[in-house]
């Protein structure tokens, strides 16, 4: 892929900042609208990015979300400095959650975040290092 056909935007995410939580995903959604990405793909990207962003807000000290767009696909990459996930297989199950009551009061922690991300993306990769952080990569074909 030619570098000049690639667009990259990066967003900082702060842990436990519920006032701004979701802003980055909304910005990505608006960006995709502006460049004319089909509505159904925008919705899938926005939902997956939002779930991932909320996970960083709820669990990590901070993180970065990168949105990379080229003519073939959209790639969303999230890297956080957080507690990590010790059992990814278990975390991927619908309904499994380690959320605190405070997180549930904010409407999150139903154990649907990671499954929602996987369901909405065409390809989903996750690696995690306990005590250091988690990296997610989601691809959406155009």
């Amino acid at each position: 892929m030619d570098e000049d056909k690639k667009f990259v935007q990066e967003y900082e995410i702060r842990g436990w900042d519920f006032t701004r939580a979701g802003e980055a995903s909304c910005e990505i959604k608006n960006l995709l609208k502006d460049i004319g990405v089909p509505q159904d793909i925008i919705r899938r990207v926005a939902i997956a990015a939002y779930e991932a962003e909320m996970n960083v807000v709820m669990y990590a000290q901070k993180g970065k979300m990168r949105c990379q767009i080229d003519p073939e696909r959209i790639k969303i990459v999230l890297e956080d400095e957080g507690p990590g996930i010790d059992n990814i297989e278990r975390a991927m199950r619908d309904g499994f959650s380690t959320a605190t009551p405070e997180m549930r009061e904010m409407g999150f922690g139903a154990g649907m975040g990671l499954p929602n991300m996987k369901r909405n993306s065409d390809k989903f990769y996750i690696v995690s290092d306990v005590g250091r952080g988690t990296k997610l990569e989601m691809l959406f074909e155009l």
Partner: protein
Amino acid sequence: MTLEEVREILKAELLTHNVNLSIEVCSACASDMMSDVLALTEPGALIITGLATTQTLRTMEIADAAAVVFVRGKRPDDDVIALADKKEIPLMSTEFCMHDACGLLFLRGLCGVTEQVKKLLNKNGRR
């Protein structure tokens, strides 16, 4: 069902004013958990929830929902309502509890996302 009909059926207070209530809602999703809403909401759906925070507004925007009804008389803070007004997002508040609000809307033909139930409602000639 239009948002105006939703408002009448639920005897709901309209919290935002710069909105179009002639919009049709295709289905509804009721939950206090935003991940459930993201997983189960169709574009153009109505969200029924007891969670009155900024995240409700953000979630409905992300999910392309048409409007939000807060149950048990809940209402978000004024700054959230002001933001929704600015974005022309319809927010309502009903005194009914979630189960009864859902029941009243279902009786009038507004279903969730389960295909079997949609077919059943269509078979019975409801909208």
